[in-house]
């Protein structure tokens, strides 16, 4: 593998996923495995079904056919909050932060699943509830340090520039301490420096926390640089899957990007 790390067993395996909306077929029998500790890039032209694939994986869309096995458990459909509880976190193409809340509160929401104290303790905000809150605050502060966003801690995210919002969104996903992190175009609309920062964060997350990452990205330079494996979707089908260099040389992929007609 590219940086010499050993990839583990498949963490998630999607088999023969088909999804359609009315008459539009978004995915047609896509099978895709995501292995432990890898960075998998999903690429493809617009409308190829990349985001739909992520939506299926984290339970936002329910496929008409196919199964998903995550950590050895097979299922057809689950609700997004169940996916979250099992350790799947994600970010969105168009930032999906809670605009009325501060950076700190946004990232704190990533800890909600881990906070257990009931209503009465919360109302008292005393003893166990306070200790729990502070423990999670500390965990969140580590993420804030990691992402270098200390200065915007108390600013409502609606007022932040786009690049920072994407970073906060990554922070919220990290706060969930996920096993599988899905990133939908984490670098869209960023300038070069912001992209470099984001690449660094993604590689560090993968390296330091051992988090498995699947990301959608359009910037081929970035894809080739950071991913261990690349899967290519076109018209709802998977047309290639393998190491970056092999995929780059694949004739079907070149055709898809150059727009050779599909006879």
């Amino acid at each position, binding site marked *: 593998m590219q940086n010499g790390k050993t990839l583990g067993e498949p963490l998630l395996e999607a088999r023969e996923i088909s999804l359609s*909306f009315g008459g539009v077929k978004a995915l047609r029998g896509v099978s895709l495995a995501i292995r432990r500790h890898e960075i998998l890039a999903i690429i493809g032209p617009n409308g190829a079904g990349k*985001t739909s694939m992520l*939506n299926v994986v984290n339970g*936002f869309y329910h496929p008409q056919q196919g199964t998903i096995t995550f950590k050895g458990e097979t299922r057809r459909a689950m609700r997004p909050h169940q996916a979250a509880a099992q350790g799947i976190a994600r970010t*969105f*193409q*168009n930032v*999906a932060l809670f605009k009325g809340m501060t950076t700190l509160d946004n990232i704190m929401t990533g800890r909600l699943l881990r906070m257990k104290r009931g209503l009465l303790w919360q109302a008292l905000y005393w003893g166990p509830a306070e200790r729990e809150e502070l423990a999670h605050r500390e965990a969140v502060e580590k993420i804030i340090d990691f992402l270098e966003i200390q200065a915007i801690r108390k600013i409502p995210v609606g007022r932040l520039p786009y690049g920072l919002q994407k970073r906060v969104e990554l922070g919220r996903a990290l706060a969930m301490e996920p096993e599988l992190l899905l990133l939908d175009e984490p670098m869209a609309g960023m300038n070069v420096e912001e992209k470099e920062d984001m690449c660094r964060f993604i590689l560090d997350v993968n390296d330091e926390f051992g988090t498995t990452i699947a990301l959608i990205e359009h910037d081929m330079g970035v894809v080739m640089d950071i991913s261990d494996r690349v899967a290519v979707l076109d018209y709802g089908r998977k047309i290639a899957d393998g190491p970056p260099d092999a995929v780059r040389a694949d004739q079907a992929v070149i055709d898809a990007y150059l727009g050779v007609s599909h006879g």
Partner: protein
Amino acid sequence: MELLHALVIDPIGAIADNPEFLLEVVIGGLLTGVMYSLVALGFVLIYKASGIFNFAQGVMVLFAALCFVGQLQLGMPLVMALLSTVAIMIALAFVIERVVLRPLVNQEPIILFMATIGITFFLTGLGQLVWGGDVKTLDIGLPKDPLIIGGVLVNEFDLTAAAVAGLLVAGLALFFQKTSIGRALRAVADDHQAALSVGIPLKTIWVIVWSVAGIVGLVAGIMWGTNLGVQFSLALVALKALPVLILGGFTSIPGAIVGGLIVGAGEKVAEVFWGPAFGGAIEDWFAYVLALVFLLFRPQGLFGERIIERV
């Protein structure tokens, strides 16, 4: 056992004994429903053209009726009073656009909704301050005699109301389909930004829509006012248009009509046959609960389209 009797056996027995009476009740209900439809129509127009949920539609009905009846009482001839009330409603549309809508453009829908609650209170106060809060009888010579058609008792006035509603809907349909203003309106309803970018003047459109809604309100106000007298409770009756909208969907004119008919007939039948079992006056809430139950099964309304959520 007693409950079973009150809820099932007695009402159904009553219906089976006298099916003509049921027919009368249904027809009476349908004709009340027409009135709900008239109010709902005003809501739909504004919602379609601006995405604003106009809570003030009910009070616009009251306000228009108050202005109309007030001027009649001052001795103004019928046609003059009618024209001057139309003028007032158009002026009101101008003021609302200038004072409320323009400063709030691009705000969240919920903020605009609350602003229309503000308009509701303002107009309630203003209307009653100027014209007084007493009940005013309104009689502009609409026929009110009972008729027997095919063995069923109907009221001439209800038939008139239905005819007026039909004319109004036909007129609006023509206006929307055939005129350039109508085309512009539909464009705005579809996409504000796109409409702006092809040069449709949003402000003018809003004034027109609110004026039309005001005039529809006036028609509804005259109908309701003739029936119940012009008084504050008109604004509350108009709240019944809300469940109508839920049944019909917020953007559908046929939906407003059909929804109104369902609510009107449904609540009359419920009141007459099931009301006694509950102690009466279930008309107060029946429409809302009906709408609520309906929503649980079909959140998009009768004629609304299914929404696909995207991220």
